[in-house]
């Protein structure tokens, strides 16, 4: 097993055991599946963000992309069941297009992805409310909400099935040629380019995958929570946090997609545990902040003890390699 997975799986196991200890019902299949259902959108988003981060970039636009997608879906479907399917296809197309634009601006024009996707965040937020005059309108159909809300068979929710299928897909993708070139690009873009990797295209594809993951997360979140102008707020930071907790280095070339998704489950189980312990909703953020800093401090110390060949022992990955 990948060594970078050890810390996150350890933390996740401790948290899950702690939850089960506080609330023994947690191990009942329906309760545990409900937990996975809640975690599915963030886990998918973390997988998408993983591709971008592993390639050495950032995607800050996914939060407002989710909001935009949900608001667009509600306005276009407007309660009409027949519109469900083409709207879902349209959402996926919009997600992919957003990723394509992010990737093109970053790779062709040399704009740092932090700025390119920050600009995209502002544009999407402005555009979607411009279109709806400031407040979400319309309604989602039951067929649309089925994916985020209902079960496929028995007690197994749609969102868990989707998470499993896409998760397996992501793992297989990382084992394919694309995955290898993605890691090579994130590790050392110049070396990868000299070895014949089409770096621009690899990075753009990573942004497209991230946009698609935001579209799927939007379908699940819209179904689960309904239409609101707040639905995606802060999701970009939650996804990046999850990815980093999962042992993936900002700056690229390290970590695994399983780790990123495990990181998302860790964030979600942290919420669940804090809730069970009755930590007030407000202080929850403070505890979350502390734990995230501590966890990353712990992982970055661990990885520093085993410098990778060719990188120089004290090459400052800590605060320096972030935003190139």
């Amino acid at each position, binding site marked *: 097993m990948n060594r970078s997975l050890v810390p996150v799986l350890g933390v996740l196991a401790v948290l899950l055991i702690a939850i089960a200890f506080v609330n023994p019902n947690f191990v009942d299949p329906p309760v545990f599946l409900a937990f996975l259902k809640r975690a599915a959108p963030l886990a998918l988003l973390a997988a998408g963000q993983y591709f971008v981060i592993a390639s050495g970039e950032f995607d800050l636009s996914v939060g407002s992309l989710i909001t935009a997608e949900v608001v667009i879906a509600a306005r276009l479907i407007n309660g009409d069941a027949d519109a469900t399917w083409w709207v879902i296809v349209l959402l996926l197309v919009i997600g992919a297009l957003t990723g394509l634009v992010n990737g093109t601006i970053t790779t062709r024009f040399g704009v740092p992805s932090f700025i390119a996707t920050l600009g*995209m965040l502002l544009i999407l937020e402005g555009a979607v*409310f411009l279109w709806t005059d400031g407040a979400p309108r319309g309604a989602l159909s039951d067929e649309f909400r089925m994916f985020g809300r209902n079960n496929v068979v028995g007690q197994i929710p749609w969102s868990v099935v989707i998470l499993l299928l896409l998760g397996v897909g992501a793992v297989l993708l990382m084992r394919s040629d694309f995955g290898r070139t993605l890691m090579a690009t994130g590790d050392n873009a110049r070396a990868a380019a000299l070895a014949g990797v089409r770096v621009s295209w690899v990075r753009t594809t990573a942004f497209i995958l991230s946009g698609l993951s935001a579209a799927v997360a939007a379908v699940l979140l819209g179904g689960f929570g309904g239409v609101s102008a707040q639905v995606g707020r802060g999701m970009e930071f939650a996804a990046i946090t999850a990815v980093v907790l999962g042992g993936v280095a900002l700056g690229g070339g390290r970590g695994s997609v399983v780790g990123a998704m495990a990181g998302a489950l860790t964030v979600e189980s942290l919420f669940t545990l804090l809730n069970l312990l009755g930590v007030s909703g407000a202080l929850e953020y403070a505890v979350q902040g502390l734990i995230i800093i501590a966890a990353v*401090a712990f992982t970055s110390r661990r990885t520093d003890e085993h410098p990778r060949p060719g990188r120089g022992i004290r090459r*400052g990955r800590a605060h320096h390699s972030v935003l190139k």
Partner: protein
Amino acid sequence: MTAIAARVRLPSGGGVHLALALVLVIGAVIVAVDGGNLLSQPSITGILHRSAALGIVAVGQTIVLLVGSLDLSVAYLISLCSLVAAETMAGQEGMVLPAVLAVLGVCVVVGLVNGLVVSLLRVNAFIATLGMALLLRGVIDDQYDGPAGQVAQGFQRIGYDRIGPIPVAALLMGAVALVAWFVLTRTKLGYRIYAVGGDVEVARLSGIRTAPVVVTAHVLCAVCAGVAGLFLASRLGAGTPTVGTDGGYDLESIAAAVLGGTALAGGKGGVVGTISGVLLLAVLDSVFNALEVDPFFKNVVRGTVIIVAVAVYAVRTRRPR
């Protein structure tokens, strides 16, 4: 060394001044066609007022960006500082100085923690300051339900008074920028900040102890956020838990600095460009306000301007190779 210093001193985002001039001229023409006057005295005062808070934060953000770090906690820190200031003052003139000192104390602690976590614990600055943002958010949400405290009457003059056409707020922004400019270009600390941001390993091998430089930069950035918090408290008359996040000061300050030619990777740029970047955004806002454009459209244009401007810089710097 002097050659390097001389090169460093040049504002690398020279284009932003040109862009600012262009936007000002084009904006003035468009507003004039619409029957308004962008260059009227109230309008210019408005532009300066609008840019003060973001300008002060962005100057601090520029310092941490130059050292190769960044600070995502400034928005919540601003809110917290406005609350601390207003609660300490509680409307009494005599408590202004203690309030200012309390705010600076909070900022120094937050900056120290940010800097130490980044430099000694070697946590990625993005995560470290995002964690700090969550921490501050937790404290604010737990302690305050809404606006609290009241600033002293005399203190409100910082937010509203002006000397001739120039608001005191703009003078405050100018003073902060001037101090930062002096520190960055005329002191040992400034050269070290550029050196560490340019290449931390080279700086270390040249005998610079890099950790204190990074920590100092974070403290300076936090203090700037505190000054912005004080200004916003004086403007609103009370402390407000959402004043920092509503202004989007975390990401917008980074955008303004980069718009002004400061490199995200560190080591390149300066506060002069940043102030032009902030003024550019404020002029755009004023043009849209004068034309009574849908406020949501503003975000679309802001995002586009930021992307296009940075793309132009990037393409221009790449060409000579």
